[in-house]
């Protein structure tokens, strides 16, 4: 029965995608027979679409992200970013569709992890944006927040944090620590995937030496080569894995990925 129900979903998805993009149903069915069907949204080139079809898939992806964000907003008056997963999905919906420039944002949270305000703090070129710590500080003090989640996109598609990404995180952690404002995560978005530095345990400790208010460039070019697999990037290809059998990184209990402030 479950299989039939799954087939219903897959069949609806294929029918809708064919109507919207013109990609043939048989091509999608053939792909779905041996692969995870949803890969076609995440990695559209695998089904070799033409330029027009590829553009349509990109627009559809952007719409789906916006839809999910609106659903979140409609469900609750306030959006609660209480885990890296929710924060990741939230910023994917805001940054996932941006391919032509880097954009640096921050969500300022109250003590209940409700978003007080989300601001764009910098927008740059395709490979670089400049972050001004003074602007982040001013925005945080203006809204009297208790914690901050940083986020920016990598238009180049890499999910791995660059050296500059780590530096700016450390600098902001160090600036806010004496004010008892925690920088709880830094989310990096590429396409519809994200990397959470908190989830990987790579949020730096505050260091007085790092306190500086000079502008800092962010770049997705010089990535730190320490990751073996990008979070989320290939999970869709591993749908047949029983998730109960996976030992998630630093995950001991159900609420492990919730923020500890």
């Amino acid at each position: 029965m479950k299989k039939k129900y799954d087939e219903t979903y897959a069949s609806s998805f294929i029918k809708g995608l064919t109507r919207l993009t013109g990609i043939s149903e048989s091509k999608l069915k053939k792909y779905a027979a041996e692969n995870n069907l949803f890969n076609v949204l995440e990695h559209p080139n695998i089904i070799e679409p033409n330029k027009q079809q590829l553009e349509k898939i990109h627009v559809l992806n952007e719409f789906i992200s916006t839809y999910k964000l609106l659903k979140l907003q409609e469900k609750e008056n306030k959006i609660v970013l209480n885990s890296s997963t929710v924060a990741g999905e939230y910023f994917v919906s805001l940054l996932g569709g941006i391919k032509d420039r880097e954009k640096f944002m921050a969500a300022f949270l109250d003590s209940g992890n409700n978003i007080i305000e989300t601001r764009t703090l910098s927008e740059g070129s395709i490979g670089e944006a400049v972050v001004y710590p003074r602007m982040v500080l001013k925005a945080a003090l203006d809204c009297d927040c208790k914690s901050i989640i940083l986020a920016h996109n990598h238009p180049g598609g890499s999910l791995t944090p660059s050296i500059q990404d780590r530096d700016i995180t450390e600098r902001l952690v160090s600036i806010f620590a004496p004010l008892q404002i925690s920088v709880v995560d830094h989310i990096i978005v590429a396409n519809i995937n994200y990397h959470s530095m908190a989830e990987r345990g790579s949020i730096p400790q505050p260091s007085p030496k790092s306190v500086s208010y000079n502008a800092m460039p962010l770049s997705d070019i010089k990535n730190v080569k320490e990751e073996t697999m990008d979070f989320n990037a290939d999970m869709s290809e591993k749908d047949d894995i029983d998730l109960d059998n996976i030992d998630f990184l630093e995950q001991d209990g159900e609420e492990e990925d919730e923020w500890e402030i």
Partner: protein
Amino acid sequence: MLQDKTNKQKDYERASQLLGRLFEVDSDITEQISRCIQYYGAVEFFKNLESFDFSADVFEKLDAVRLVLFGMGEEVMPEVLIDEITTQKIDSTEGGAEQ
């Protein structure tokens, strides 16, 4: 709170514009979609698709988006249509069993 409303409104407009780009339709259709989606909310908009006055062509495209969202597990279908789709699928998969 005002900031919240403004952001939400911007997101509704963005969603409508993306649909307009996807469907390659004129701006008046995009505005019509925007009005409906803001009035009903994104989820209810798709659930109530049949009740709006869209042209057959636009309806078909919106329905295609709804099918994709439904396929991804989103609750966008009215109950009556879910029953219909499920029954159709079961009929078509079980029909061939009779030899």
